[in-house]
């Protein structure tokens, strides 16, 4: 019954899959490139929709998957296809043979510096959603000056829904993340005016609309429909943001102490590189392509290879965890049907 399953990526998808495989009596081997488990979620502070500490989720997953074989700081050097299995060579010199490979390689955050007009890496007051989450966790970021927080802006859709940035997809989680972060900042700086610059508000998930209403009604956050076109710096070291208020049909400007760019979720080159070793197809949005985007999302077109989590497109934590379980079930069923 016991079967080796190689899981590429030790984010939440990889850990949840490992834990479920262990529960079914299999032997998962988790290959993680970085020095820690938990992937992106390990950087987040509190998770929408219930503001559960991200650390709690990661700690739970790490402890319940600890019996898996886990390699940190390890990458895939190459993969060969043998008759009915794969030979996987790791960067630490170990080689593994397995019938099953599960990709949980996740996403990459869009590099906000590519949108030069927003001034990330140019102006000191411009940070990303990821920087802000890290600051919530560590209180350390020289760009955030606690004493001067009178006006803060959030720019939605940075590197998403943007053909020029070569990402036409909506990253799905950044509207709700912006609102969540805006509320958290307002709670820290009650006197600050906070602005969200959006094109559409895409708040699809459970209780997301409630966050929006809370942000409007209880926190007085200003929602401005219009994409920021340009950011510049004034002599006082603040940033001036220009946009069109498309509801008013007029140009608009505002001076801010901090500007947060909602960088989108884009395909992870580490994921496509490994997929390339097995000639796995890439979808039109750059993410790994499932057999079917409706009913076989976790199944690749190649025998024995499965996907879970953000490697096939932007996903929330609950969606990612659900996919990990679903992929494990596909693998388990396939193992059983061989016997």
């Amino acid at each position: 019954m016991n079967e080796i399953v190689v899981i590429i990526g030790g984010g939440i998808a990889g850990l949840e899959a490992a834990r479920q495989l262990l529960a079914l009596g299999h032997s998962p081997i988790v290959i993680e490139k970085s020095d820690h488990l938990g992937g992106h979620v390990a950087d987040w502070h509190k998770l929408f929709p219930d503001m559960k500490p991200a650390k709690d989720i990661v700690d739970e997953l790490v402890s319940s998957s600890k019996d898996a074989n886990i390699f940190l700081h390890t990458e895939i050097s190459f993969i060969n296809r043998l008759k009915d299995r794969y030979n996987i060579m790791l960067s630490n010199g170990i080689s593994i043979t397995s019938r099953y490979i599960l990709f949980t390689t996740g996403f990459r955050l869009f590099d906000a510096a590519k949108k030069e007009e927003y001034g990330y890496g140019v102006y000191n007051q411009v940070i990303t959603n990821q920087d802000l989450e890290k600051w919530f966790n560590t209180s350390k970021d020289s760009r955030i000056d606690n004493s001067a927080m009178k006006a803060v802006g959030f720019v939605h859709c940075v590197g998403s829904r943007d053909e020029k940035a070569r990402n036409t997809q909506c990253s799905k989680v950044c509207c709700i993340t912006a609102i969540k972060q805006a509320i958290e900042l307002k709670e820290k700086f009650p006197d600050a005016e906070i602005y969200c610059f959006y094109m559409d508000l895409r708040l699809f998930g459970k209780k997301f609309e409630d966050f929006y209403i809370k942000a409007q009604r209880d926190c007085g956050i200003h929602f401005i429909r219009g994409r920021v076109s340009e950011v510049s710096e004034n002599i006082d070291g603040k940033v001036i943001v220009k946009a069109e208020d498309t509801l008013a049909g007029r140009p608009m400007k505002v001076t801010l102490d901090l500007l947060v760019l909602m960088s989108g979720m884009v395909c992870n080159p580490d994921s496509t590189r490994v997929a390339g070793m097995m000639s796995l197809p890439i979808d039109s949005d750059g993410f790994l392509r499932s057999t079917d985007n409706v009913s076989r999302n976790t199944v690749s077109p190649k025998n024995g290879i499965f996907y879970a989590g953000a490697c096939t497109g932007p996903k929330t934590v609950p969606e990612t965890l659900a996919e990990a379980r679903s992929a494990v079930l596909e693998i388990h069923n396939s193992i059983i049907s061989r016997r």
Partner: protein
Amino acid sequence: MSMFGFRISPSSTIDLDKVDRNRFKKLCALEPDASKCMACGSCSATCSASEFSGMSVRKVLLCLQQGREKEAYAMMSSCMLCGKCLMVCPRGINTRHLILSISRIYGKEESI
């Protein structure tokens, strides 16, 4: 110069740094739902005064948040307080009551 058709147009830019939010904050204290508008436009579409006067609760709220109080007040003068907008607002804003509160707060001010 005007003979040649040249003139300096006033800037139409909304400068959020200069918006005086005191009255809007007063309004929100009285009508907490005033900031809940999601700009769907149902109120304006149903308003019988809108066709003739451009009255729109949505626009009134937008103007007030941007300090364009005169514009908002001018629009409101054609409201008949029929309450149709109240029936359709998906955010459950008591728009009719809101309009009365706006008149109460902004009407008193000489400055607008």
